[in-house]
């Protein structure tokens, strides 16, 4: 059973079944890893709030990530995006820690589930749309009408723009979900090859497995970064209407 590469994505109940109005909200292994990731973030960054002029290692780490994300936001979305800093910071850290905890063998990758990434992406999409309409009123619809397009092509362009805008949550969620799922499946498949080829031929897939682990750690960081930076870009569209 354990050799099925999709088995690692199974969600199962931990503890008793919790039901409110016939809706199952039981504590599962996915919930467990969400809680672990959040707690890890809170603990690490809480240790990083010591007031000392010369920072220790954890403080340095938290301050570096603070300035890293603050620089990313100001580079992509400008100074107007400052109020959304803590949301993007939590988003980046949550996705990063979920991805990284997923790299531990026998653990569960929260972000490899489409429903989790889709909820995050949908929340971002709805929030960005609301911010856009609040900031620009109906003028936000100008986002779909790029300037300098010939009148003949305009209907087509507007339709394409609307489709691309509406597909943002799907592309954002599927990108993260597919990356995480594909990577973990591949690692599992190579692990299965190691076992099935045994001591004679298993060394090659073992090497691949080791290399893939490094790649997956890179992907885990990169996907969190991409998720956060795309959020910043969408926010930039809503805050600074360039068309």
């Amino acid at each position, binding site marked *: 059973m354990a050799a099925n590469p999709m088995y690692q994505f199974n969600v199962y109940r931990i503890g008793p079944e919790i039901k409110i109005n016939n809706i199952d*909200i039981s504590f599962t292994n996915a919930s467990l890893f969400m809680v672990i990731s*959040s707690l890890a973030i*809170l603990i690490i960054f809480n240790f990083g709030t010591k007031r000392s002029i010369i920072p220790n290692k954890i*403080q340095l780490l938290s301050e570096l990530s603070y300035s890293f994300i603050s620089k990313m936001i100001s580079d992509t979305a400008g100074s107007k995006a400052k109020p959304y800093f803590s*949301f993007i910071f939590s988003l980046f850290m949550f996705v990063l820690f979920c991805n990284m905890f997923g790299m531990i063998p026998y653990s569960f990758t929260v972000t490899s589930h489409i429903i989790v990434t889709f909820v995050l992406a949908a929340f971002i999409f709805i929030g960005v749309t609301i911010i856009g309409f609040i900031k620009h009123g109906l003028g936000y619809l100008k986002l779909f009408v790029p300037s300098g397009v010939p009148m003949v092509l305009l209907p087509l362009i507007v339709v394409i723009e609307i489709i691309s805008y509406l597909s943002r949550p799907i592309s954002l969620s599927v990108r993260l979900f597919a990356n995480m*799922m594909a990577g973990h499946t591949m690692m599992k498949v190579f692990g299965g090859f190691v076992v099935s080829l045994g*001591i004679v031929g298993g060394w090659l897939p073992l090497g691949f497995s080791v290399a893939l682990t490094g790649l997956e750690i890179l992907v885990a960081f990169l996907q969190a970064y991409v998720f956060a930076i795309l959020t910043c870009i969408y926010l930039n569209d809503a805050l600074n209407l360039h068309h």
Partner: protein
Amino acid sequence: MLKKIIFQFLALSLIFTYSAQSAESGGMPQLNPEFWISQIFWLVLTFGLLFIILSKFILPKISNNLETRKSQILENIETADKQREETEKKVKEFDKIINDTKVEAKNFFNSERQKVLDDISSKRLSLEKDIEKEIIKAEEEIDQLKKTSQEKVTKIAIETSSDLVKQLIGEDINKSSLSAIVEDLSKKEMEKHNGI
């Protein structure tokens, strides 16, 4: 022995392969909606709590830390600049004091030397004057002595010569003629003596 181990591993891996092939069922667990609501609920709960705690308690502290560090560094740089300026001023003052004292010492030395030199020259002058006076006095005395001695010598010469003549001849000779002879001789002698 080695063959046995390899064989065992091969058998084991065959078993694992069979079990893997037999477990080909279900497809993607991600598309099973059984726990979707639970996942959404826990995601909203944990992420919401994470966001609230981070934004209310932790991130302000970190930004505060960064700000205070920045301001403290700026302050320190400012004070360091101020202190450097002060040090430069002090060094300049110190140099000035050293220069002043050098000039003063030089002046003092020069004036003292001048004083000593003046003192020496005045003393030498007075000494020279004294010496000259002494010399003049001595010369006068010598001159007087010379004069008086000549007269005395001629007188003695006349008396002795008259005595000699009296004893030799037994009679007095005209003193005036004798004195003339003695004077003439002494003149000759003096001329010879003085080298004239």
